[in-house]
């Protein structure tokens, strides 16, 4: 199935990509996608552990299932607002 990845902040800079289409096995879990991303984008491998994932604009846990056509966000630690 096909899904769309979106990278933000430092991850966007490191991958050089804002959006990226990817073909993955049906109903892949986020934790397996995380492993795949580490293979495909070794430059962000060390950041994936501290990143969060979203599916269609909602935070999800590592055991969430991805469906065909989903938009998966890979979100480094957030730092909005002021301290």
């Amino acid at each position: 199935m096909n899904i769309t990845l979106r990278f933000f902040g430092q991850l966007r800079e490191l991958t050089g990509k804002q959006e990226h289409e990817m073909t993955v096995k049906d109903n892949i879990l986020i934790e397996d996608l995380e492993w795949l991303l580490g293979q495909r984008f070794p430059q962000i491998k060390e950041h994936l552990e501290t990143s969060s994932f979203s599916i269609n604009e909602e935070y999800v846990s590592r055991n969430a299932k991805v469906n065909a056509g989903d938009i998966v966000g890979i979100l480094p630690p957030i730092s909005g607002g002021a301290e």
Partner: protein
Amino acid sequence: MIKLTKEPINTEVILQNLEDKSTGGVVLFLGRVRDHANNKAVTKMDYDAYPKMAEGKLAEVEAETQKRWPVKKIIIVHRYGSLELGDVSVAVAVACAHRKDAFEACRFAIDTLKATVPIWKKEYFKEGSGWVDGVMPTMKQAGDKTTLQ
């Protein structure tokens, strides 16, 4: 009311929109771009956002604050894009009948916003730049501290 915008934040308009004769206490928080971070001079700041998701999270912050305190009016505005020193990056304004509620609600809203809204800051120094260390977003609000695994 919530807003995510690339335009400068107009505090005057925010305070006008907060006018309400039934509320005696108004608290406005402004976050601004500071000229230093960790003892290094900052020259400007870029804010990256996941716009659609950030708007959803801002709306959740608004709703949760209204659920927990007797808030008559609440306005949350976050700016993103390229900001200069002194620019307002975020504004949270709350009007309540009493000041205790206004202080607590405003504080809760900005703390929860910081913990949940997908926005990233990149600091520029005289030499070089760097993304600001952040926090893992919490699944829900700052109230329950469940960090995503």
